[in-house]
């Protein structure tokens, strides 16, 4: 009797969390998808109205820009953060003096929200007040760094600030990874006279595949959720050239009072997330316990 109860304990322990997730994640997602099929304006309405909102979304040039930007931003952000994080981790792992201080410097952006750093970044990147003006004041009068105000390049400044915030965390992941590589293999390789570069590319990095995976997952979740970044840095501008799906959705839902449209864009975003994350989760969980 008691043993049978005992067997149920793990499930009972997990039950509250799981039901919370069912409601607060899945039921809410369902709610949002439902609203996408209504004509809701400032407040939700529950009368179904077909796929009208998706048609509007498809015709919206602003949404098109937002989606394009998500791909540009997402790919660059993930790749650069990963590469830079790995690079910093490898450098920091060379028995560096004052490693602690440097590590804190690379990690601290993670502790700040963009409400805090947004204004500073805006000044730094603005050609009139920041780097461009600074370098020019040294006499390099032809120096140009105007990405922030250039409609074709503004999205890259979002990448710069985004990488600044997240690469440190990736560095921490990789540093941790580097420090848990089996040292005996490395010593053996050294004894065999294999070059440092080859030790890294052939032994150390391949053994860190799971770290790469964690990094990419953390980064893609940050990329999809990126919101504060854009709001603080460009407000979506110039024009709406740096809009991302999350800012688009927010603008529709809250400044426009166009909930149906917002829900439709949210639905598309959710589908994107599903397309990226679910295959990963599936393969991860299978391979480990298959």
């Amino acid at each position: 009797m008691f043993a049978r109860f005992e067997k149920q304990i793990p499930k009972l322990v997990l039950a509250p969390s799981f039901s919370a997730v069912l409601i607060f994640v899945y039921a809410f997602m369902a709610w949002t998808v439902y609203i996408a099929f209504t004509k809701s304006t400032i407040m939700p309405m529950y009368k179904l109205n077909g796929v009208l909102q998706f048609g509007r979304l498809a015709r919206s040039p602003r949404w098109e820009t937002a989606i394009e930007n998500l791909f540009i931003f997402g790919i660059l952000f993930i790749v650069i953060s990963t590469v830079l994080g790995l690079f910093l981790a490898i450098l920091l792992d060379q028995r560096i003096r004052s490693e602690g201080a440097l590590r804190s410097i690379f990690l601290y952006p993670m502790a700040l929200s963009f409400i805090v750093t947004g204004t500073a970044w805006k000044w730094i990147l603005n050609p009139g007040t920041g780097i461009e003006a600074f370098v020019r004041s040294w006499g390099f009068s032809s120096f140009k760094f105007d990405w922030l105000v250039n409609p074709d390049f503004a999205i890259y400044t979002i990448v710069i600030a985004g990488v600044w915030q997240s690469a440190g965390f990736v560095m921490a992941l990789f540093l941790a990874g580097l420090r848990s590589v089996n040292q005996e293999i490395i010593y053996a390789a050294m004894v065999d006279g294999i070059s440092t570069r080859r030790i890294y590319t052939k032994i150390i990095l391949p053994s860190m595949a799971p770290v790469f995976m964690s990094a990419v997952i953390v980064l893609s979740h940050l990329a999809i959720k990126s919101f504060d970044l854009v709001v603080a840095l460009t407000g979506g501008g110039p024009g709406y050239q740096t809009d991302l799906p999350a800012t688009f959705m927010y603008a529709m839902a809250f400044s426009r009072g166009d909930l149906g449209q917002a829900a439709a864009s949210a639905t598309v975003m959710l589908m994107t997330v599903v397309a990226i994350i679910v295959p990963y989760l599936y393969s991860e969980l299978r391979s480990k316990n298959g």
Partner: protein
Amino acid sequence: MVNKKSSAGSIGFVEYLIPKIQRIGIYLVLVVFAAYYLMPLFVMLTTSLKSLEEIRTGSFISLPRGIDLSSWKIAWSEACTGVKCQGLRPYMLNSFLIAVPAVAISTMVGAINGYVLSHWKFRGANLIFGMMLFGCFVPFQVILLPMAIVLGKLGVAGSISGLVLVHVVYGLGFTTLFFRNYFVTVSDEITRAAKIDGAGFFRIFYSIFLPLSAPIFVVTIIWQFTQIWNDFLFGVSFSQAGTQPVTVALNNIVNSTTGVKQYNVDMAAAILAALPTLLVYILAGKYFIRGLTAGAVKG
């Protein structure tokens, strides 16, 4: 096993392989990147020490002519965040009242969830884990309005407890992930042996797993505290007069649209609001890496 891999020192071999000149190069590169990383903080700090006149006339990237701490005082206790002009002080308290219980609860629940999902698997456990993980990736803007409805139904709309609930729920995915991945590295044989000795579910958790988990607790607590402290979206949506967290107050100081901007006060306020998380990273950064090394990294 956990502790075999957690050698906190660096890989010793490199110093044999990398000549001195290259080491200087490494330092140089690191310093350049450190400068890139410190730039925003530098701008914020110097601006907060300047007078408004100096900001209007000078470049943003220049050292202050003198040190003027008055903006800090204003930001802390005098700046107007609305009709009331009490600075950030009262809102800091709200943030602590939200963050401390939310971090504690989500971490504890995550620990026990992780324990179940790594050592007490049942049919469907992986599916449940996957579903919880997926929750981490949902953009929060999507769930704001249904959340508001539910909080209203629960009778905690606008209250601190409502905000704690929200943060706990949306923190569970990550805390569970951290603990589960950490506990997976603990050998199953230990639990099996303990079970044979007659230890139950909770007993094994308390006497075997908890003592092992200090590093992962550090990682989880830092992560959660940062997320919750910096949250603006939930804070602004689910608070009311008297329960607004510090990020909302900061936003009120920094983002007023049709008023005269006091950039020095803005910056001082920004640094003040970020101080708790900054301190956490600076003081516990070492343990953060150690904790990650000890297992959270293994995806």
